[in-house]
């Protein structure tokens, strides 16, 4: 299987219709993601980030414009695109091992066992195979969810605020882990976040969205060498650049932290 | 305009259900019309309608329904009051819980209908036995729901009350009982529903006075299936009304709970 793919989003718009009105959630989104890139999407709460992600996954239907993967129109969810939801969504009745194996055709074959084992090692959960989700901490659950999304070797991994519920220290640790996984797997990652530091530490490009309707306001490249130093001059400079985008949006200057 | 659109949406959304009911009705009519089953066993729709009119006109239905409802009211009142008091006591005081819980837990294991023979031995077959039987049935749901309701009042509210130095009475009135209201109301709904079917059980087993259960079983004995059918419909309707009524009450009284969450 050709693992990497170019994702092209052209003139994408999405409306939600309720009984008597229509809400334009996304308007005219254009974005190209190169194979192996790490992209962060940042924007205030309710601006349509999750909707965008769900469209790319194929969980949401009925949109205008085009979402192309290697020039092919998307048609429903697929194993080629892994997702990590904001709530980890591990099935409580399956052990971690079985949760991670959910995406495999035949979870019992030797090949599958090996893949599960490898991915548990990748996310640092070796030894927790037989545990159940309620026995794991928040960070561990998120890591298990990442392993589950990666186990079929998708070309693109989509993450919806995967670290949102974690405390600051665990989150910084997870940044290192995510970066390591991204490098090791050579995979395209698109991550939604509301943490500016997180976006700068991890991404090649930061997509800043504005709300009502959700549009792409600016795409900020992050040409810094990895691993990145949060205190460096360049880092702070980029951070200012990102924050500026939100101040210009005069209605709710600080809502991005919510 | 609004009425016609309402009817239209009703039909559109309930269309499938209406089809099923209609099919059922047609089968019923056909079976009795062509006497595939004799009228002795399955009354025809017109016969049931006629019987309905008859029992209403003769006053039989009114009297029966009335006396059953009076019985329920009495038994329900006794059972709920006792259940509520014990529930509050056990909810508030750990000692009361320790004292009474084992006893009530043991008594609760008796399948309600199993009390009937014992109560008849003790209280005869007249009013007192029916009312005690219904009281027992109404007692347990209220007891449990009151107890659980009070226990579910979050500790953090109790701490708030402590900060404001509420005394015990005020604590009960302002925090504990209001917090338990949604549970209590759902307990009332349960025990009201239980009371309704228990009155039928009691009347079927004693057959001494007027009552809907009595009308039902004598119709069965007297081979008058049409009247029995009327009773089934009436019993069903009352059960439905009780459930709806208390369901509305429950929804209304627990709105704060939903919006709070």
């Amino acid at each position, binding site marked *: 299987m050709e693992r990497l793919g170019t994702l092209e989003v052209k003139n994408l718009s999405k409306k939600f219709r309720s009984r008597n009105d229509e809400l334009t959630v996304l308007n005219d989104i254009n974005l190209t993601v190169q194979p192996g890139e790490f992209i962060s999407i940042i924007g205030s709460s309710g601006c349509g980030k999750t909707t965008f992600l769900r469209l790319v996954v194929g969980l949401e239907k009925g949109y205008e414009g085009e979402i192309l993967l290697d020039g092919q129109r998307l048609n429903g969810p697929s194993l080629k695109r892994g997702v990590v939801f904001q709530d980890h969504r591990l099935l409580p009745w399956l052990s971690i091992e079985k949760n991670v194996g959910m995406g495999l055709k035949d979870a019992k074959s030797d090949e599958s066992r090996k893949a599960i084992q490898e991915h548990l090692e990748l996310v640092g959960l070796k030894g927790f195979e037989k545990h159940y989700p309620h026995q794991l901490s928040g960070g561990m659950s998120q890591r298990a969810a990442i392993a589950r999304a990666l186990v079929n070797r998708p070309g693109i991994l989509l993450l919806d605020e995967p670290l949102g519920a974690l405390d600051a220290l665990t989150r910084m640790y997870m940044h290192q882990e995510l970066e390591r996984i991204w490098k090791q797997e050579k995979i395209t990652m698109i991550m939604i976040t509301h943490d500016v530091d997180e976006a700068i530490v991890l991404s090649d490009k930061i997509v800043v969205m504005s709300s009502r309707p959700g549009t792409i306001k600016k795409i900020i490249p992050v040409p810094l060498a990895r691993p990145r130093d949060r205190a460096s001059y360049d880092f702070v400079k980029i951070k200012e650049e990102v924050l500026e985008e939100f101040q210009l949006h005069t209605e709710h200057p600080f809502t991005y932290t919510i | 305009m609004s009425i016609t659109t309402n009817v239209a949406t009703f039909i559109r959304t309930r269309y499938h259900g209406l089809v099923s009911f209609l099919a059922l009705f047609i089968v019923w009519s056909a079976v009795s019309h062509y006497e595939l089953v004799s009228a002795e066993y399955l009354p025809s729709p017109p016969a049931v309608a006629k019987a309905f009119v008859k029992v209403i006109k003769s006053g039989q239905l009114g009297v029966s329904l009335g006396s059953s409802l009076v019985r329920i009211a009495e038994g329900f009142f006794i059972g709920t009051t006792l259940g509520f008091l014990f529930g509050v006591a056990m909810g508030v005081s750990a000692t009361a819980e320790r004292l009474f819980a084992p006893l009530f837990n043991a008594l609760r*294991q008796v*399948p309600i209908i199993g009390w009937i023979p014992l109560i008849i031995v003790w209280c005869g077959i007249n009013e007192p036995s029916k009312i005690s039987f219904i009281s027992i049935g109404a007692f347990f749901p209220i007891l449990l729901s009151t107890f659980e309701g009070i226990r579910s009042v979050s500790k953090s509210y109790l701490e708030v009350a402590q900060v404001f130095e509420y005394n015990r009475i005020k604590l009960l009135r302002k925090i504990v009982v209001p917090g338990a209201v949604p549970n209590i109301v759902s307990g009332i709904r349960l025990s009201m529903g239980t009371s309704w079917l228990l009155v039928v059980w009691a009347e079927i087993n004693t057959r001494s006075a007027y009552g809907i259960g009595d009308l039902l079983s004598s119709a069965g004995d007297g081979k008058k299936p049409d009247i029995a059918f009327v009773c089934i419909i009436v019993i069903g309707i009352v059960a439905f009304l009780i459930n709806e009524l208390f369901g509305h009450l429950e929804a209304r009284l627990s709105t704060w709970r939903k919006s709070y969450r």
Partner: protein
Amino acid sequence: MKIQLLKNKLTGLIIPLVLYVAWDLLSRYELVPSTLMPPPKVLFETWWVMQSSGELLLNMKMSLLRVGAGFLVGASSGFLLGTAMGLWKPVEQYLNPVFNFFRQVPVVAWIPFLLLWLGIDEWFKIVFISCGAFIPMTLKTYDGIKNVPASYLEVVRVFEYGWFRLLRTVIVPSALPSIFTGLRLSLSEAWMLVIGAELVAAGEGIGNVMVIARRLFQTDVVLVGVIVIAITGFAMDRLLGLLETRFLGWHRTQNAQ
């Protein structure tokens, strides 16, 4: 700690003990006629006589067989209907209103008709019990399937599951707690209704033993009957409870958090 726990347990015995002593004294000195309240000793003797003569076992066997049959038929058909309504939209649309309509009528109201159609023998009792067991099982199965969280279903959509794997991995496990609740409700309903059916229609069975005893004013036998059915009901529920913990370990521990 341990002493405190023991003390708590002992407190619970106070009231039953007081009641027991009062009962013993009242009946011993005939303050209450012993026809109404036989002393505890008599109760034990009666139980022993019923037990050793085999009367109790024979009648319990009959009742349990009926419950078994009625529960099996009622719960399994309830499971099927609940599953069908939960999984297939058309079944739900056509049958759910009808089911909801009929479930409003308490099963006791059907007694005269069932007697008319089926006579007073086994068929009546088993059908009656099945009807009672059917309702909670249908409801709870349907509920369980309807309430499978949409978030889990989305996870599975990404993995492109076929319907069998979907059923096995997500829907059944997720609905299982509710299905177990249905089983327990349905069994206790069946146990209550077998007593009810035996009170109404003659034949062997523990309920019938109690009716005959009450006609003959054998209060001791009635009381033994009450105690025996309570213990049996409790034991059956416990049994299902054990099965539940065995199958639903994840559920218990998750909710305990």
